[in-house]
């Protein structure tokens, strides 16, 4: 499934003295199986934009298109958008309510009217995907789990509704290194093996710079720059907005400034390492 925001604008608290613009004339498109990364300083409208993707907010002007159909056409199309676009909020573990992990994950499929007989299998699959053993965890209470486990339960809760497009708002914030890696691997699997479209908002672009096809940078509610991740990362706008770039990109920049041309736009430490070895060998 592809998703598109066409010229979408949204103002908060319309018609009150507290009105403030959320986003202005946003255009984005993510094709099926594409991985789109989104960056922007705090208050740049990232979360506002995300909430338009599954119809939580209705644009003041512009359209949200899911496979070229406006999601606000009818109650049914909105419902379909809610199911097909899985939105994982920031710190999703704060929204857990189920008495058991099973109940928590079955909530989405039940609400969307999946056949009752299939739900246990759906829950098992979702738990497998996020790396939680069904037998071991299904009757555990979410509140007794560790932070990383809770986050995976929350993610499984969204995945259980079998969304085609997965939208994540800073999914790795507050996780330890292992938790971050597990989560990134889970999403990579869904993206590569199942062709799910991924939209990932982050401040830590280094985690996904080698995975995201395209990078979109927002500032003050508008798209500042968009393009291939590797190209956007070398854009000077990144440092102007105070956004972090991967160390590898910074190193390439430094080398370039010293007259040493780096090839292939490396974004991971492995890539820049190999490139430096190649450069050193060339000198010898």
């Amino acid at each position, binding site marked *: 499934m592809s998703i598109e925001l066409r010229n979408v604008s949204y103002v908060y608290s319309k018609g009150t003295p507290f009105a403030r613009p959320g986003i202005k004339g946003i255009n984005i498109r993510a094709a099926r199986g594409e991985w789109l990364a989104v960056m922007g300083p705090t208050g740049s409208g990232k979360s506002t934009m995300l909430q338009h993707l599954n119809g939580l907010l209705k644009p003041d002007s512009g359209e949200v298109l899911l496979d070229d159909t406006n999601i606000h056409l009818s109650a049914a199309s909105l419902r379909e958008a*809610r199911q097909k676009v899985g939105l994982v909020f920031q710190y999703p573990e704060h929204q857990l*309510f189920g008495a058991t992990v099973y109940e928590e994950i079955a909530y989405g499929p039940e609400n969307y009217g999946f056949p009752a007989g299939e739900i246990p299998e759906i829950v098992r699959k979702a738990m497998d995907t996020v790396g939680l053993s069904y037998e071991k965890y299904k009757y555990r209470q979410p509140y007794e789990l560790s932070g990383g486990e809770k986050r995976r339960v929350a993610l499984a809760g969204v995945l259980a*509704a079998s969304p085609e497009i997965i939208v994540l708002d800073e999914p790795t914030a507050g996780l330890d290194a292992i938790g971050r890696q597990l989560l990134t691997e889970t999403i990579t699997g869904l993206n590569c093996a199942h062709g799910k479209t991924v939209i990932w908002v982050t401040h830590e672009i280094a985690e996904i710079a080698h995975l995201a096809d395209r990078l979109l940078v927002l500032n003050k509610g508008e798209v500042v720059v968009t393009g291939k991740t590797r190209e956007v990362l070398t854009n000077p706008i990144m440092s102007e907005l105070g956004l972090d770039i991967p160390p590898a990109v910074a190193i390439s920049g430094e080398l370039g400034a010293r007259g040493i041309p780096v090839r292939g736009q490396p974004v991971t430490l492995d890539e820049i390492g190999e490139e430096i070895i190649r450069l050193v060998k060339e000198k010898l």
Partner: protein
Amino acid sequence: MEGIVFGQYVPGNSLLHRLDPRTKIIVSAILLWLVFVVETPAEFAGYGLFILLLYVIGGVAGSFLKVMKPGLFLIVITLVLNMTFTPGKVLFNIGPVSVSQTGLENGLILGVKIVYLILLSSLVTLVTSPVRMTDGLEQLMKPLQRVGLPASELAMMINIALRFIPTFWEETDKIIKAQKSRGADFESWRLQKRAKYMTALLVPLFVSSFRKADELALAMESRGYVVGMKRTSLHKLEFRAVDFVVLAGLAVVTGSFVFYKYF
């Protein structure tokens, strides 16, 4: 959830905004009492105009009708009950229900009084920021500390409660959105379903409130907050000339009005 604004303070710089909160609390207490003193239609009309004038001075005339919305139900019920249940000369009948003249009069008078009470008490919150309001309350309650009333603790509690209302709404909004994303339909008419969605909302909301309260208590203690300790205030409240003028003016007007009514 958007658009619900509690403690309806409208920032501004009018004469009423600049008055000391203590002045405003005292004045509003007396004006609220006066609502029960006025009797004749002429007095009611005059008092209504006076309240409208206050709204204009405060620069919040736009809120004049809006603040009455939450009280509308109460006003209508008062009017209907008084009209139908008061015995007296029958004015007209609606089906089996007869409306008496005294009932209509009583209902109208009480209704108008409720309207005035709402208008006056809302005016204070419209032109006073919550922080200044609690500062004012704390100062006014101070003398009662001698007899064991924990004035500053009470003020602190009110302050914290007010401070966390927006946070609470934000949190509620966030959880509702998260549950909606997972197919919850909060507008559902089926009671059983609704109950289920409410659990999905209330459980995380309670958990997060308790967590926030815990964190706040720790943060306050680590910054040296001790219950019962004498604290100073960043924004010292000061009576200025205009406060004395308003209070003196009020005393003269109220005094002569009461004198005229009762002597």
